[in-house]
């Protein structure tokens, strides 16, 4: 009887010991190496520690990783990646739209970052191969801050990320300060001249225009194909476009544009497309240019 008792006491003791230490060691593992991330599709992804090998299929994400000083972790990029210059030596694993799955897998990534253009089902495909995948391509300034913060957290560079965001906000405030009491100029951003495809509310360029003391003449959200009558009605004073949007000569030939203030006064700003369309802190360069162009009197 006593023997049984003592044995069961020992057993209980062992069980308790295992439970307690087991929990503790699990807890320890969790806090040490698991990183939970929510991507821009709202999916929660669990990473096993800071990823050492990242395949970035979003040029802006590549750029931000380099800015965080973590460019060495990037092992694969898209064929469109051109900034910073170091990315030239990183293997290309397909376009922004269609990654080459075999090449991505062969790089043994700890995490893959894709854009929403590629879509949820590509993310799910990678996850079935046990490769955590994040959808992180910002479509407005707040999302850009979220992406920077998330990448900072993932790579263990939280401070650096916060610093970048703070600097960016500070720059914005400086420009806002100078333009806040000035009369707003009517601005239009054209992404494609032949389709009259323009930036509406909530897009990056729209936010930059607002900060620079302008007013986007398009008040519908997102990227839209603008009715030419609307161009005549709102008469833009400034037109911002990029080299790949089309030829300015063609724009001047369109009757609706011919008599706008912007065309008559020659107020057309052409900015390189990568600095106005990529959600990275380099947007600040575009912002300064736009502000200088919209309100030359204070810059």
């Amino acid at each position: 009887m006593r023997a049984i008792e003592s044995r069961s006491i020992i057993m209980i003791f062992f069980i308790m010991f295992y439970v307690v230490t087991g929990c503790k060691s699990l807890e320890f593992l969790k806090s040490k190496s698991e990183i939970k991330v929510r991507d821009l599709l709202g999916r929660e992804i669990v990473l096993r520690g800071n990823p050492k090998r990242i395949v970035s299929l979003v040029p802006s994400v590549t750029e931000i990783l380099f800015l965080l000083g973590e460019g060495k972790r990037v092992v694969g990029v898209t064929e469109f990646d051109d900034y910073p210059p170091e990315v030239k030596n990183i293997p290309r694993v397909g376009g922004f739209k269609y990654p080459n799955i075999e090449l991505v897998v062969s790089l043994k990534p700890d995490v893959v970052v894709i854009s929403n253009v590629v879509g949820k089902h590509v993310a799910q495909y990678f996850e079935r191969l046990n490769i955590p995948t994040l959808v992180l391509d910002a479509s407005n300034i707040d999302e850009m801050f979220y992406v920077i913060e998330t990448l900072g957290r993932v790579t263990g560079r939280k401070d650096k990320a916060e610093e970048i965001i703070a600097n960016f906000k500070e720059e914005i405030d400086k420009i806002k300060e100078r333009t806040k009491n000035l009369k707003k100029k009517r601005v239009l951003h054209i992404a494609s001249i032949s389709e009259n495809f323009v930036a509406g509310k909530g897009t990056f360029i729209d936010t930059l225009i607002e900060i620079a003391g302008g007013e986007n003449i398009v008040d519908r959200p997102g990227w839209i194909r603008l009715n030419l009558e609307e161009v005549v009605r709102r008469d833009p004073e400034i037109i911002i476009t990029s080299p790949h949007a089309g030829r300015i000569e063609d724009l001047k030939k369109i009757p609706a544009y011919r008599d706008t203030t912007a065309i008559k006064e020659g107020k057309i700003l052409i900015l390189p497309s990568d600095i106005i369309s990529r959600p990275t802190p380099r947007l600040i360069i575009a912002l300064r240019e736009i502000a200088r162009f919209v309100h030359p009197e204070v810059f």
Partner: protein
Amino acid sequence: MYRRRLYIFLVLILLVFMILLSVGIGSVDIGFKDIFWILVGKREDRLRDIILLIRLPRTIGAAICGMALAVVGTFFQGLLRNPMADPYILGVSSGSALGATIAIVFNMGIVFVNLLSFVMGVLVTFFVYFISSLNGRSSTYTMILVGVAVSSFAFSFISLFMFIKHEQIAQIVMWIMGSFSLVGWSEVSYSAPIIIAGSFIMYLFSRDLNAIITGEESAEHLGIDVEVVRRILLFTGSVVTASCVSVSGIVGFVGLITPHISRLLVGPDNRILVPFSGLMGGSFMVLADILSRTVIKPAEVPVGVITAIFGAPFFLYLLMRVRRGE
């Protein structure tokens, strides 16, 4: 009979060769020795994943879909007595494309893209069959015309979705042009049983099809209920096509030209033509898939583009021949 068996044997060898080639060739160069060790299970790493979880399922998927499309194409051409008929003629593809587009636009993920495209593909075919048999017996002409009308109706909605949600255009276009790049074991596991069972059921009717092709009246005299047989074949064919399309998107021309090429090689007897055409379609599709991922490495061309590049000129040639024959 002996010669025909030889043909089937040869095309079977062709298919096996294509499958081996497809597993051996890809964006990542993996030596044949490595592949051998991976296949016998003696290696555990990312290369193994590439062979066993990426290349193999997509190759099998391509082979099965190519086979099914060719079989269905053979039957539909005979059944509708129209050399231009293909598996999509009754509007399956447009329905499937609409289903997939809805799932893509609302970001529902991979399972729903497959499921909705399957369901919509089958529904649209039912609808076409229902409309065209409203006033009594369905004539094949009405059926084809209704198919065309319903297809353009469905595609107008796809265009509308693409216009409204332009950030998802790339995904929709990729799907419409067809691709096996995201075909994994789970896609193969739920589509293959339907496709293989369906193709086999259709094969059982190849003798009846022979009779129907010679004339519906004479088929009735042979004791074949033409209307019932046709209904069974159209239904099965549509379900098979819808499950192909739900996996790979719309891949054109395989289901159109393979039956014609096969007919030139082995003659019109469907008991031989159907299996030959199926194996031929599988080989053609696997070859197209190999090309789709190798012609402009590292990018992938949609497989539908490849099949169209080969298929369209042949289709034109065929068109000329049919015209001359009239």
